[in-house]
């Protein structure tokens, strides 16, 4: 059955009636309130199936509601529904699911009879009645929200190659910037929402899963691998239902302190009524590295081809290359089903992924159980639990004399003995993690006008980092071993309530209140032993000398919020709210923090004069504040116990302290619009935002001559500004029964500027020539630069301390398209551009200094051949500055790193039902590729490769394994 778009218009005109009633109806349907009691003599039944108009896949969990009577239900796990006891006569049935356009269909119900009504829904990026819970008090419809909210419905990108949550977000949401960092499997990505706004407090967003806050800590960075594993990667993308993103302080006020970097909330799949439906997903594929380094270096810097170097590497593998095709295999099995009062979604996964360097790779397995218990119409319990076990084997990498590619690229000038680079892989580095996330959510709707929501949850993680140099290891003959155990428990207690009332003059009121408490407990235990007596596997205390560390950090925080939203005629909404926050790491003189918010949204399209072809248009504006807390010891003057005089107990100063220390605050205002046109075939979302982080936590250095200058003292003194635009445009050029072609464009700009630090402080050194300086982006590169690059035959003029450029991209483009043919063949592609930033090619600089950077060898030979009294003859000063060690420097090797990458492409075929037999519901086979193409003028290993990756604010490339390509075949079967 096909659907006439005219009915959407009808639905809109229907919504213009009785706004409060419609709001209440929405609440009713959300809470799964079902049938009003009516006698069978007056009623009939409607049943049918809701499917995707693009792929014909059944849509599970779609809401079906007859707004006039409040009758509603959800589709079951096969997309089927039954509305019983529907009053006889003409009815309007509305179908709604996140990520798809809402449809309203007329149907005539006959007494005592069953009417079939199948509906196909089409994807639509913006739907004004979609329910949103992130950044709101309780739930809210998109039309009511004055700030921008991005949603990613993972069902829509099921055919894309996704290996983690960051892949889901990459290139798909304007204002979400994701940098890949490394080609080691297991590496965390750098995630920024609207850029950097904190010098010392971290800039990553808060992550929630089903209302439970996740840890904000990495699984431990180490110098040896120069990367850190990301806890975000523990979530199996197969379990994700949708993701909501609120990007700035205007939207995150109700999250209080810690939310200045934005909030990403992930919702996992829930059960659905019906017989169990099983889903199996199998990935098989390879990770492959292309040519490494400059094209003119035919050996790929000894990585692609290790046979041609002189002197030879006796450990060069038989294949002639250090690179391999890493085998990728992922298996996921899930089942969902249930009855009226209990539904379930249970899944398990086993993954194994090899990296492109021998010994590198990761494996994991996990299990999830999401259970819903609905004892009555007004009460719902949701219990979600997820356990994941993950093992990552790293190779030594980055700024590290023992680094594998450092030694391979440097040939016989590396640190491995006799150029035996395989021995670098004898250094074993591993991260093993256990992760358990569990939460209980309770929704109680004692009446249509009032709701309560309670979430209690815990994110527990334990990671074990091991670093093992065996006995007779080339770099440390006696060997050593380090074992670091990190245990982190983040507990969430979150309550909110709201009460809706009708007021005179088409006004409505939604009053909300609530509070959250978080308890973060972190324990680090580290043991170290060195000096092994002989061969064999070792533990820490096998060492002749041992050392241990214990670090315990406990923070508590919490706050209360109040919010009032006044609506007028379901088209204008004004929201005012505030949050009071306490935090254990605030200074003892500080007290509590208060964050206010104010927002407005206006559905201008609700006016009768609005053109029919323009489905919906919302104007919105919001202003709000959020914060970021100092560290647990920053407010205190403390001393540390250390060892002095060869093992005697001693004390040494540790922190300066500041009793009045409070959070840094980000105040943001944003304004924009959301629009849907031509029956949802064109949607647009535009936002301008302007953030000012004041009372910024700036590490201020006391005067060295005061005796405490070796420390920094965190103080609330700085100001940082970010502003930019976010544009999302989706359109569907072709939509017929057999062809659906959609295109999405996302464009975002982020202009960051450090406005001030503290009087007299001109710069804060972030690391690796990245600095925070007033007047420049946070962070920016400052170092040496050649002032006469195009002069020929003269000595280069090198000036130090020159501004080079920002270290983070200030503009990003995301382009995606998908074409679905005959509801069975789907082609997708996603490209992303990031630009405006610079990256230091530390690899190139160091290789050049060793005469091993092929593009420099010509200049170096010419320089050597020139007579001593005319060394620069025929040479560009810029080339001399870059290629001759006496003149060169890191600044000269810091260059624009704009890039375009084809992040993913796929072709998917849904096997026709007629081939499946009775037992299978659906089967799909998909060919997927990731990072298939990179276009850049950056001449280092990769414009995304970065030392210390997700754990650092600075960016720098220095012998970091670049990201690789992946080719995957995915089989997906439902039965």
């Amino acid at each position: 059955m096909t659907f006439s778009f005219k009915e959407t218009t009808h639905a809109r005109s229907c919504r213009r009636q009785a706004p409060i009633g419609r709001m209440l109806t929405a609440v009713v349907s959300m809470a799964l309130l079902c049938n009003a009691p009516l006698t069978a003599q007056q009623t009939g039944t409607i049943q049918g199936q809701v499917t995707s108009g693009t792929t014909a896949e059944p849509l599970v969990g779609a809401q079906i509601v007859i707004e006039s009577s409040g009758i509603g239900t959800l589709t079951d796990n096969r997309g089927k529904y039954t509305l019983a006891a529907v009053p006889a006569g003409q009815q309007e049935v509305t179908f709604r699911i996140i990520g798809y356009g809402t449809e309203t269909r007329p149907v005539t119900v006959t007494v005592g009879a069953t009417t079939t009504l199948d509906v196909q829904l089409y994807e639509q990026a913006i739907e004004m009645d979609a329910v949103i819970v992130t950044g709101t008090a309780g739930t809210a419809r998109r039309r009511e929200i004055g700030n921008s909210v991005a949603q990613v419905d993972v069902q829509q990108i099921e055919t894309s190659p996704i290996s983690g949550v960051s892949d889901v977000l990459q290139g798909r949401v304007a204002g979400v910037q994701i940098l890949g960092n490394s080609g080691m499997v297991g590496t965390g990505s750098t995630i920024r929402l609207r850029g950097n706004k904190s010098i010392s407090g971290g800039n990553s967003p808060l992550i929630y899963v089903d209302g439970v806050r996740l840890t904000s800590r990495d699984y431990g960075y180490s110098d040896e691998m120069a990367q850190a594993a990301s806890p975000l990667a523990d979530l199996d993308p197969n379990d994700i239902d949708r993701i909501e993103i609120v990007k700035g302080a205007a939207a995150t006020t109700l999250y209080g302190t810690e939310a200045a970097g934005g909030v990403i909330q992930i919702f996992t799949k829930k059960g659905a009524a019906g017989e169990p439906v099983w889903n199996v997903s199998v990935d098989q594929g390879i990770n492959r590295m292309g040519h490494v380094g400059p094209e003119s270096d035919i050996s790929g810097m000894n990585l692609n081809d290790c046979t041609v170097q002189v002197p030879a590497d006796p450990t060069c593998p038989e294949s002639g290359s250090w690179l391999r095709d890493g085998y990728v295999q992922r298996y996921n099995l899930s089942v969902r089903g249930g009855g009226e009062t209990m539904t379930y979604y249970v899944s398990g996964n086993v993954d194994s992924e090899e990296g492109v360097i021998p010994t590198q790779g990761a494996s994991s397995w996990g299990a999830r159980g999401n259970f819903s218990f609905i004892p009555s119409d007004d009460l719902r319990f949701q219990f979600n639990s997820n356990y994941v076990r993950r093992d990552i084997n790293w190779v030594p990498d980055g700024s590290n004399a023992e680094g594998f590619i450092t030694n391979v690229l440097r040939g016989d000038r590396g640190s491995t003995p006799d150029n035996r680079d395989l021995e670098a892989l004898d250094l074993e580095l591993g991260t093993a993690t256990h992760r358990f996330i569990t939460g209980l959510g309770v929704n109680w709707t004692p009446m249509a006008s009032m709701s309560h929501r309670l979430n209690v949850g815990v994110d527990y993680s334990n990671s074990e980092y091991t670093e093992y140099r065996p006995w007779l290891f080339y770099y440390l003959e006696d060997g050593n071993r380090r074992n670091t155990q990190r245990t982190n428990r983040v507990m969430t207690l979150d309550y909110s309530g709201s009460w809706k009332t009708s007021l005179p003059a088409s006004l409505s009121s939604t009053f909300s209140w609530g509070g959250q408490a978080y308890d973060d407990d972190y324990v680090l235990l580290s043991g170290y032993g060195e000096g092994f007596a002989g061969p064999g596997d070792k533990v820490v205390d096998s060492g002749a000398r041992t050392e241990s560390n214990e670090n315990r950090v406990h923070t508590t925080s919490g706050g209360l919020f109040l919010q009032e939203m006044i609506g007028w005629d379901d088209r204008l909404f004004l929201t005012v709210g505030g949050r009071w926050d306490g935090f254990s790491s605030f200074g003892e003189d500080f007290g509590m923090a208060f964050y206010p918010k104010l927002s407005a949204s206006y559905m201008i399209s609700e006016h009768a004069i609005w053109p029919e072809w323009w489905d919906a248009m919302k104007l919105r504006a919001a202003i709000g504040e959020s914060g970021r807390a100092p560290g647990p010891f920053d407010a205190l003057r403390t001393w540390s116990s250390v060892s002095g005089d060869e093992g005697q107990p001693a004390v040494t100063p540790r922190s300066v302290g500041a009793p009045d220390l409070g959070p840094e605050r980000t105040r943001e205002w944003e304004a924009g619009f959301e629009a849907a046109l031509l029956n949802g075939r064109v949607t647009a979302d535009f936002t301008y935002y302007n953030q000012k982080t004041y009372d910024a936590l700036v590490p201020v250095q006391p005067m060295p001559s005061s005796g405490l200058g070796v420390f920094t003292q965190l103080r609330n003194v700085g100001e940082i500004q970010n502003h930019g635009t976010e544009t999302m445009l989706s359109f569907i050029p072709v939509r017929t029964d057999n062809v659906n072609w959609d295109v999405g464009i996302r464009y975002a700009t982020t202009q960051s500027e450090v406005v001030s630090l503290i009087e007299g402080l001109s710069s804060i050194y972030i690391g690796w020539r990245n600095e925070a300086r007033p007047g420049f982006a946070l962070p920016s590169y400052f170092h040496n630069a050649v002032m006469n690059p195009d002069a020929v035959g003269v000595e280069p003029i090198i000036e130090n301390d020159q501004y080079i450029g920002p270290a983070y991209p200030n503009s990003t483009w995301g382009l995606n398209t998908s074409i679905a043919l005959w509801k069975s063949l789907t082609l997708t592609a996603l490209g992303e551009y990031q630009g405006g930033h610079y990256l230091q090619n530390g690899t190139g600089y160091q290789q050049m200094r060793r005469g091993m950077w092929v593009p420099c060898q010509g200049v170096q030979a010419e320089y050597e051949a020139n007579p001593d009294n005319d060394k620069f003859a025929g040479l560009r000063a810029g080339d001399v500055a870059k290629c001759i060690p006496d003149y060169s420097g890191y600044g000269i090797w810091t260059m624009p790193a704009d890039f375009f990458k084809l992040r993913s492409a796929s072709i998917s075929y849904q096997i026709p039902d007629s081939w499946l037999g009775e037992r299978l519901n659906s089967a799909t086979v998909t060919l997927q590729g990731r990072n298939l193409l990179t276009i850049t003028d950056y001449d280092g290993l990769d414009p995304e490769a970065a030392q210390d990756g997700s754990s650092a604010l600075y960016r720098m490339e220095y012998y970091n394994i670049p990201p690789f390509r992946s080719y995957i075949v995915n089989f997906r079967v439902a039965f």
Partner: protein
Amino acid sequence: MTNRYNVQPRTTRIAVLALTVVAMSGCSDKLFSVTNPGRIQDDDLNNPQVVDALVTGMSHDFSVVHDNNAVDVAMLSDEMAGTGNYEETRLEGRGIARREDFNYNYEALHRARWVAETGIERMKAIEGFTYEGNRLSGRANLFAGMSNRMLGELFCAVTYDGSAALPKSAAFERAIPFYEEALHHAELAGDQALIHAALGGLAQTYLALGDGAKAAEYAAQVPTDFVQFALYSPNSSDEESQVWSYTHGRNEMSAYNTFAVIADDPRAPYTDCTDGSCKAAESADGSSPHYRQEKYPEVGSDIPVVKGTEMRLIQAEVAIQAGRVDEAMQHINEVRSVHGLDPLNASNAESAMEVLKQERFLTLWLEGRRLFDLDRWDDPFLQGGTIFYPGVAERARCIPLPETECDTNPKVACTV
């Protein structure tokens, strides 16, 4: 429909508001109060039983920076060639001392000073601790003296607690009373080693101040075989010697082309790594031959701070200045005999001074003292001497006030 529930929202609202008021009141302090173990609160140090750890901490804080200073002095002076991968080491090898490369040296040396000086005041005030005549009081004053003396020796100018830039002599003059008080407590406590260390410190400081007579007077009281060390240990990474790390661990500086190689003296031992006897034949710059120092062959090798042999050389230098060449050579040869070396002769003050300079090079090799010696003597090496890299026109003769002091101290204008 809503009438039945009219009471409940109002009640809830009142409850919410009441909860808000409670939370915003003083209760919040306790609600969000946690205690984290591991760190020591400042007030907890006011305990007589902590003084031992406090003074050991002074030793720790001095040692933590002294090895760094020894590394930088080695490369800035003619002791070692800067042959490293780090930009700073290559610049220092060329005699270039950028302000930004010496922030830590100044900050950490001032920390050592501050910890000792404020520790002394704390010790005086701690109830139950007897300051007068206590060996620990003597040690604390010794570390205060040593830190101030090193500030003066290393830096071209000094500042204290945000003062304007002061001449080196201000640091030396500040060191003197600490040494004197160290001597006072050491004598009362009968601690002979502490007495010799304090006397040696006074000799070094008066020599730096140009008061040869007093320097020689104090030096004469220290026996030749006395050594006081800054202590290092493999016990913890904090206690590891950076001199070892820069030469055995990372090959950042090399004895190649230095006087140590020419002299072939037991006081300046090294290994020629080009014969394959080390992990790498080259230094970290990828091209320079690595000649590895062996004076500190272990990560825990201690670095001398006061030595009786230096005292003899102080006496010798003062004697040369007074024209007493024979006496000077007698002191010098006493030092040489300690190391099993044949005596040397000098016919006049000029040649005796040349011998003395070489003897100080070898005796105090890699102890963080050479740059100040070159500065005191206005040694020609500072005029553009070269070891390995092309020398700049004029090498740094001392370390400039570092960038962080320039940036944070409004009374200092680092314009040059």
